[in-house]
């Protein structure tokens, strides 16, 4: 369960560049909820994710995960509960480490980094099985450096690393945006499968209206640092991308980001 209460985040306070990125946002995701978030540029979507992840500390408000207040908890500590996939496929993996070494680091998320072997035979078997679910043949290339993989493969690996040690909250920050349509579709499918398989509480930012409708059971529309519209599962199912765009325009006063996609 993820509960954000009255979150405000201001960048460059008391300067001419002061920008209110989040303005009293409150939202509650029940355990297993999968919410997609859309919004115009600068609506505060990424800031919201960064506040949940602990990269930014909000000026006001609280972040609670499973009823624990984690607002002041450092990012690397919060990683025991929160995992994330970034938009940039290069951001989520270490290029000079092998596939299995990257997985071993993710496997250790939330545990101590002691002097036990990083990779054991048992772990390797586990990694192999998990990689098989990606259907990319990576299970046969455990010793390959991640820097050798394509963007799509790296993003699939990042997704696996974020989900196979089940986090309390999964954050997806436009994680299919930098990929071509085929690979984007693949990552979307893998995302749906992983969230379903582990029943993860998920918050996903996207600029793709169709993806926002296809994935998850809730849809949030953000504008100028707040949530201006919420669509529930039933309404979401019946809605088309055009209708969503219409609603979006009405809720945000007509502003649409030039990156917003109606369809794939």
């Amino acid at each position: 369960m993820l509960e954000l209460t009255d979150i405000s985040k201001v960048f460059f306070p008391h300067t001419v560049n002061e920008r209110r990125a989040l303005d009293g946002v409150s939202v509650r995701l029940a355990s297993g909820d999968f919410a997609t978030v859309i919004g115009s540029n600068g609506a505060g979507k990424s800031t919201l994710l960064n506040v949940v992840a602990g990269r930014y500390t909000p000026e006001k408000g609280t972040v609670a995960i499973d009823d624990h207040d984690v607002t002041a908890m450092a990012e690397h500590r919060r990683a025991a509960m929160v995992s994330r996939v970034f938009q940039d496929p290069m951001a989520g993996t270490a290029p000079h480490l092998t596939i299995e070494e990257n997985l071993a680091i993710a496997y250790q998320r939330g545990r101590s980094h002691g002097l036990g072997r990083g990779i054991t035979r048992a772990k390797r078997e586990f990694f192999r099985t998990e990689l098989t679910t990606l259907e990319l043949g990576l299970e046969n290339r455990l010793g390959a450096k991640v820097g050798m993989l394509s963007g799509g493969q790296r993003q699939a690996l990042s997704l696996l690393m974020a989900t196979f040690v089940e986090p309390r909250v999964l954050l997806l920050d436009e994680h299919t945006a930098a990929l071509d349509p085929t690979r984007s579709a693949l990552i979307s499918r893998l995302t749906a499968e992983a969230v379903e398989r582990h029943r993860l509480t998920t918050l996903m930012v996207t600029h793709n209206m169709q993806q926002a409708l296809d994935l998850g059971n809730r849809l949030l529309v953000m504008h100028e640092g707040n949530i201006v519209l919420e669509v529930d599962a039933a309404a979401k199912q019946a809605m088309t991308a055009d209708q969503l765009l219409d609603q979006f325009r009405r809720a945000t006063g007509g502003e649409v980001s030039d990156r917003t996609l109606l369809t794939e």
Partner: protein
Amino acid sequence: MLSWLPGFEGFITFEANTVSALELGLIFGVMALGVYLTFRILDFPDLTVDGSFTTGGAVAGILIVHGVNPWVATLLALVAGLAAGTITGLLHTVGKINPLLAGILTQIALYSINLRIMGKANLPMLREVTIFDPMRNLGLLGTWASVLVLAVVAALFTALIVWLLGTNFGLALRATGDNEPMARSQGVATNRMKVIGLALSNGLVAVCGATMAQYQGFADIGMGIGLIVAGLASVILGQALLGRRSVVIAATAVVVGSVVYRAVLQAALSLEIPVINFKFEANDMKLISAVLVILALLLPRWTPIRRMRSRRREKREEQAQAALRAEEEGRLSRAGAH
């Protein structure tokens, strides 16, 4: 061994030079491993080294002069090195000071501290008991036997580093240097990793300083000057020669690089150009080592060499990539059908 033969005096000096170059290369190999930890693993060019090397020599020297067991003295030099690295690490992580500046600040501060430790600029320990005594007493120092012993010691340190980098801690350390935001998002305390990495690195460097002081029979305030260049030269030279495909290869390459570096210096020293009556002196070493590092950095980028290397690499990678891509395309077309 062939000294009774007339005309072989030259060979004898050559052999003696080779042995001493190997001995030095292997001793400094431990320092190069320390530089490898920061420069390559943490991606942190740490200039503390010049100071912490001398700190190691100074701590071991003053303790040995006061009759402390040389092994204990070397161990305490390690502790001093750990402390020096920790300070640079804290300056960078807590103080948010730029890596180069943090290293230089500790280095310059250590200069005064080293003088305080030694009490004077040069501390002779010629008749003291050192860790080299067992070998010296058996008459092994400066022979191939001592080269073998030092090679075993260097191999042990290399194995220790390789083992460490394969633990969960080691993976976290490597991830910190490779992609820090990723490491943090995976729960790695990256600041703590940097401090520990810098401490370990300077610990190794100080042990090397302590060993070197005992090997040469004195500790000197200037013994560490320019050593970061020697360390970088070893890392860059060795890895240019052997590559760094795996941690084992990369770490071994560093020690090999250290030996090659000393051999090149030795060769440069014995170089003579008769016509203009030119000969390098010991004081030219810093210049030679700087030029050597510059060459090691620039040569791989020189077009003919780059072409040769990339052709070799391309062939290797092309095969791997082709297989990989074929596989991925297959999966993708299947995924599209879903």
